[in-house]
């Protein structure tokens, strides 16, 4: 095992990891508002990516297409919360899980109806060149993905930690009643959370699409890794989701390359194992709050 090869594997793992981290963060954003995992997160991202694809296909410049896609994703996320999630906000976990599965299946079907199930190549926004850094060969694609995702995460961190709106959103998710008393419009804050989660998903979607190709089922693998990352970091912790995603991306890449028993086939079962182990041994993950319920 060469050190330079190891470094290359780590960087390419960080690229996948930062995309997993973004998806995991989107899951956490929604988990904090309705206490349920949004199973449709991956399909929402897939649908946004198809919108970007259509725009690029019609000749819109690639970065402008991305900006438009982000805008459309935001509106779509808010609309889903207002129409589908609102009526069942306070329902049992079973109801919310099934409704989010309903979203998953119908968004998948809608994409299949509009764009078909053929596989499309998605253009990469980054130059297809490599950089040499002291004997280590890095692809510009990987670096671009890492910079984009981490940049987005930094913007979100600033938004939630330093702006009034971000604070209001956090308050609405954690203390709905108290927030309402203080004049925060809790319903709209939750909808805004869905909008933001959709935006984060859309960006993750256009970042992963050049690697996995575009088709309605493209997100099914990635979303399981995102579940594993979110669980690993603690499902209610944004920092945990990001760290979990990066660790998972690197670990899966290294295991796939160096542990021949796992190879590429057993990556999904490995993610499944991580989910089960963490949930059984330490349900709050590494960064999450231990949940205590009064009975």
């Amino acid at each position: 095992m060469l050190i330079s090869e190891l470094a290359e594997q780590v960087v390419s793992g960080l690229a996948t990891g930062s995309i997993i981290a973004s998806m995991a963060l989107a899951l956490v954003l929604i988990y904090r508002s309705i206490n349920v995992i949004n199973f449709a997160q991956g399909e929402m991202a897939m649908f946004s990516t198809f919108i970007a694809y259509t725009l690029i296909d019609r000749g819109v410049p690639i970065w402008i297409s991305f900006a438009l896609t982000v805008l459309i994703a935001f509106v779509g996320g808010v609309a889903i919360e207002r129409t589908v999630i609102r009526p069942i906000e306070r329902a049992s976990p079973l109801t919310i899980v099934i409704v989010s599965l309903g979203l998953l299946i119908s968004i998948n079907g809608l994409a299949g109806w509009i764009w078909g199930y053929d596989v499309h190549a998605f253009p990469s926004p980054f130059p297809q060149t490599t950089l040499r850094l002291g004997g280590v060969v890095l692809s510009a694609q990987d670096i671009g993905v890492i910079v984009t995702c981490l940049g987005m995460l930094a913007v979100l961190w600033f938004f939630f930690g330093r702006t009034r709106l971000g604070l209001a959103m956090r308050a609405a998710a954690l203390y709905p009643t108290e927030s309402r008393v203080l004049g925060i419009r809790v319903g709209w804050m939750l909808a805004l959370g869905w909008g933001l989660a959709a935006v984060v998903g859309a960006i993750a979607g256009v970042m992963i699409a050049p690697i996995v190709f575009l088709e309605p089922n493209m997100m099914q693998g990635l979303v399981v890794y995102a579940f594993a990352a979110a669980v690993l970091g603690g499902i209610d912790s944004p920092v945990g989701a990001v760290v979990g995603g990066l660790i998972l991306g690197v670990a899966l890449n290294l295991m796939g390359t160096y542990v021949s028993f796992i190879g590429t086939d057993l990556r999904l079962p490995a993610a499944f194992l991580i989910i089960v182990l963490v949930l059984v041994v330490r349900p709050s993950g590494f960064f999450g709050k231990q949940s205590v319920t009064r009975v």
Partner: protein
Amino acid sequence: MTPQARRLVPLIVAVVLFAVLPFVIPSFLTFQFAFAGAYTCAILGLTVLTGTNGQISLGQGAFMAAGGYTLAILAHSAGWPPELAIPLAAIVSFVLGGIVGVVALRLTGAYLALATFALAVSVSPLIKRFGWITGGAQGVTLPFSRDSRVLYAESWGIAALLLLITWFMLRGRIGRSLRALRDNEIAAASFGINPVPYKTFAFALSAAYAGIAGALVATATAYVSPDTFGLQLSLTLIIGVVIGGLDSLWGAVIGGLVVEFLPLAAQSINVAATSLIYGIALILVMILIPGGIAGALRTLSRR
């Protein structure tokens, strides 16, 4: 008629209808009905586990895979007939379901859904990876082909048996305990219901039903492959139990018929029509009629 006798009417009508059906419909339809019977068995498992006991499993397809592959491997390499292999498929999936059920004791609500979703996604890569026993991506071809009426009789005969067993089980102490644990586990436990055996048993039983269903599907198609039992199948079974009606034995039958015949009808509109209809139906049912079709029919008949 007494109310008890009135409740029997739809049952008798259904039994007569299902007994006469294979003699009046064409062979290909009989074949499709055989699949509906198999799905009914798997969905009945979810009726017990998710409907009656409140544990969300998105991994029912994994246990169908266990049952289907048990039958396929026994038939392919040891020449076992389905009649012998189906009970063994049930036992294998019962044990696997019990193991998953023990793990599931630590997981509640959405977390269980998450873990079983990951299980459903893992099935296909696991089967492909252990190709020396499962035949890998090419799958296993079974050394027999059966008449559609035999398949029909097998599927619906077994479905009827499982419905009867489940009805007996759920009408008494076990059913009450499972429902009590679903509605409020702490309250149920303080009334002396030990959650551990009941919840584990519900998981194992529902897995056994799924295993039988998988074995029936394998018998009917005379072929199993990793992609037969993927996430799609697990989701389809959840769709069946929700649309048919959670916590209703009739719901399992309705669900089995819906998931077999709705895609066949919807395909003529568009390849994606099934998913779109399923997805929208799931959302609407949960918001408007949480009891599914069976629940809605029951409400209508009481008016």
